[in-house]
């Protein structure tokens, strides 16, 4: 007899939801996280798109520690001394199921883990799982932490992008550095009303999601982000590890420092009190670096399975993790009921994901990483081009004005018409 029906490793978005579903189905489940509480080791941009969370917790709006509802989307093209911003808002962003919220992971993940506990899951915090336990046939039958071995019918790995366990479970290879980005972030405290004013939203419950392309990463593949929380601002960068390591013009931490001091960004965080400096990886290879999702006695969900997409104008991982955790938990419960937690018995999880937005998105965006990685014009030439074009339109210094056509055409020529066409076509296909 195993100690538990199921063990879930990692109490992030995927793990707590998987444990919640198992407990709700009446299974005995142990949720283990290496942080001293859920979220203690986690960092995100970020904002969570609510659709998948709502499926699991229909009343999450009332219960979850959400920061602000995103009512403004902003994208900036930035050079060292200029910034061009698009601001978008629409009522469609506010509709239930289409809405999104900024979150901080320490409070948010604790709430998620509490939901699992309330449903009956047992939890252990502050303990890293070091190894998976296998039987003679190679089936995973439990976990080892220190001297302790705990067994279960099925182990669900939700241990995130830097999983040290998926190689033992499903033979996952360590992803190469061109498929993973490094994220760096700082949190600045400010009064709620100041944030509301600076982000130009209507109330302290509404916020802005803001992405920056260009100088934020000094022309390297990647981008900057700024999210308005209730009483703080999350500011950071995501940049390709390989790109920065071998071709970056300065270290990632100096990029963040320069980004912070860019006049546009500095005006938003002015007088903010720095309270935390964090780092975390982002898988960008998508489908191309996904490991097998099931093995004998084991399932993999969330970023441990590299379920994340970075389109440049959109970063998503949390809604995939929630959905994958939900399917993993439900399918594990069904497999336990049937008494078959072999690879074949767990296969319905793979089918469920294939039929959900998770694998459909990951399939659709398979080409994105290769496109973005080779898209240096997006991070260099285009922000510079926009700056020149805007200067041409808005700067008046007494020299005789020119019709727009004669100022703009030479600028386009600098990048090359063919390049421009190629990039637009490429972007349409890959994004």
């Amino acid at each position, binding site marked *: 007899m195993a100690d538990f029906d199921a063990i879930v490793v990692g109490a992030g978005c995927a793990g707590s939801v998987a444990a919640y579903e198992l407990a709700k189905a009446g299974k005995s489940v142990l949720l283990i996280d290496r942080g001293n509480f859920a979220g203690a080791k986690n*960092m995100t941009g970020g904002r969570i798109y609510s659709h998948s969370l709502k499926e699991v917790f229909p009343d999450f709006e009332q219960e979850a520690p959400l920061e602000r509802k995103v009512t403004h989307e902003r994208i900036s093209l930035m050079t060292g001394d200029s910034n061009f911003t698009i601001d978008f808002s629409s009522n469609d962003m506010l509709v239930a199921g289409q809405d999104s919220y900024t979150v*901080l992971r320490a409070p948010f*993940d604790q709430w998620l883990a509490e939901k699992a506990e309330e449903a009956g899951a047992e939890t252990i915090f502050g303990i890293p799982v070091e190894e998976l336990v296998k039987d003679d046939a190679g089936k995973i039958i439990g976990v080892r932490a220190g001297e302790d071995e705990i067994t279960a019918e099925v182990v669900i790995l939700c241990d995130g992008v830097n999983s040290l366990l998926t190689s033992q479970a499903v033979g996952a290879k360590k992803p190469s550095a061109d498929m993973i980005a490094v994220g760096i972030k700082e949190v600045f405290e400010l009064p709620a009303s100041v944030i509301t004013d600076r982000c130009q939203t209507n109330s302290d419950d509404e916020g802005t999601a803001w992405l920056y392309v260009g100088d934020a990463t000094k022309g390297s593949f990647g981008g900057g982000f700024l999210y308005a929380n209730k009483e703080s601002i999350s500011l950071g960068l995501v940049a390709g*590890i390989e790109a920065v390591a071998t071709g970056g013009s*300065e270290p*990632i931490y100096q990029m963040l420092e320069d980004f912070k001091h860019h006049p546009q960004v500095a005006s938003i965080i002015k007088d903010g009190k720095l309270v935390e*400096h964090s*780092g975390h990886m982002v898988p960008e290879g998508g489908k191309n670096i996904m490991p097998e999702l099931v093995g004998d006695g084991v399932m993999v969900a969330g970023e441990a399975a590299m379920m994340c997409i970075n389109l440049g104008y959109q970063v998503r991982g949390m809604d995939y993790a929630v959905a994958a955790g939900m399917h993993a938990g439900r399918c594990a419960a069904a497999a336990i009921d049937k008494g078959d937690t072999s690879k074949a018995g767990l296969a319905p999880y793979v089918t469920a994901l294939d039929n959900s937005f998770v694998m459909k998105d990951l399939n659709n965006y398979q080409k994105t990483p290769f496109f973005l990685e080779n898209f240096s014009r997006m991070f260099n030439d285009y922000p510079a081009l926009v700056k020149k074009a805007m200067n041409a339109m808005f700067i008046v210094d007494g020299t005789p004005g020119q019709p727009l056509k004669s100022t703009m055409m030479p600028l386009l020529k600098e990048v090359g018409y063919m390049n421009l066409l190629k990039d637009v076509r490429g972007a349409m296909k890959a994004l």
Partner: protein
Amino acid sequence: MSRTDYTVNVDEFLSLNKYEVDESNAHIELVDDPSDSEFDKLIMVCPAALYKRDADGVKTFDYAGCLECGTCRIICGDTILKKWEYPGPTMGVEYRYG
């Protein structure tokens, strides 16, 4: 990469974080005499700026401020890192915001 003159003092920022440092066990270890070119990659990508070279090129690394992100493992796990593990029970960084 030869620049060592970056102005920002990341250690100061890290001091705002909450840590429980395991003095008895380094969870990340470099090989003896790591190559310059690999080490410089780590300088570029570690978000905590823990890999340093001084004006004379002398290399230092201090795991105490580690954010446990795994970036160094991805880029140099097969070259100049001898060991990369998570810190032991209850140890390491503890985010209050995240």
